[in-house]
């Protein structure tokens, strides 16, 4: 009996781990540019990940500040796993695509330079037009 309970508990524990599920029926193209001190930020790591509990109310994409959530009415947390990763090129350009997450249409962008990183958000239906998002110029 103990073995059965242990087995059931193990199965429940494993199934409780959250996976991110995507469908390939849609692909959103994301493009933009990153500046640092008014110069292109080159070879910076760029990650896009789903955000499950944010409800953005506009298409403006700006830095999300952990410590001052009031600056961004939609304080983010509970982020999923990185869906797409790339690096800025010599002109600071970002270009990548993401499939459709079945549980959310909101995504955040994390840009890392060395050990520093900043999060920008949100990609949502407000700024996705014809499966395309132009991030504009992000000042790091």
């Amino acid at each position: 009996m103990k073995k059965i309970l242990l087995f059931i508990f193990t199965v429940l524990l494993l199934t409780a781990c959250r996976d991110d599920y995507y469908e390939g029926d849609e692909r959103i193209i994301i493009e933009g540019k990153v500046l640092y001190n008014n110069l292109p930020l080159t070879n910076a790591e760029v990650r896009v990940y789903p955000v499950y509990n944010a409800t953005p109310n506009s298409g403006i994409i700006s830095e999300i500040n952990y410590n001052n959530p009031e600056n961004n009415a939609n304080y983010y947390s509970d982020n999923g796993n990185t869906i797409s990763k790339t690096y800025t090129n010599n002109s600071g350009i970002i270009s990548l695509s993401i499939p459709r997450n079945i549980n959310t249409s909101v995504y955040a962008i994390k840009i890392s330079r060395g050990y520093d990183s900043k999060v920008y958000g949100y990609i949502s239906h407000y700024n996705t037009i014809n499966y395309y998002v132009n991030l504009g110029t992000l000042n790091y």
Partner: protein
Amino acid sequence: MQKAILLLFALIGFAGKAQTENSKSNQNISFVNTFQFTIGFSNLSPNKSMMGDAHEEAFPSITARLGIFSYNRFTIGIHAALHRMSVKNNKYFGEFEKTTVFTPGFYLSYYQPITSESLFEPYISYDNSDYTTKGYEKELNSKSDGLGLGLDYQHKIGSKAYVTFGLKYSINKMRTNTHPDWEKYINNYNFLSAKVGFTFSKDRL
């Protein structure tokens, strides 16, 4: 799925019976007289595309096909293929580790003897592919429709057995909605497959 399998078995059973009944009356028509099983490489020389850029060559690629209806040298049948590819570039595809591809479909072939012990068998196929990509606690499911253009060389090694070498070029269209400027790169996915295996067939050479 169960209905499809039941239908397949019913069709095979019916075809087998029909073959027995028809074998004496008309030698040009036969049912379920060809089976092929091969192993090989897939995703070779892919075109410039999201799927092609993202994935390594696949080995092993396992394929099987069953001729359902044959008339003279023409055969219509069903086929299935299975292969798995590692993800090597996740820039546009996404951050994953491996993609498993299952491809059932139909084919039409025509064999042409070239010697008393060998033949060529060109064929076209409809390929309906399901892609399941996993890795880093994520799963992605995709689909594509494809046209396959293939050529098999078969050399007789027994009364009904042939060793088979084949090449196939697959022209796939991913079922993905995306920005029009990117549609070609995201959706057009073509690649070459190479295989070796065995074909079992009656009344060919």
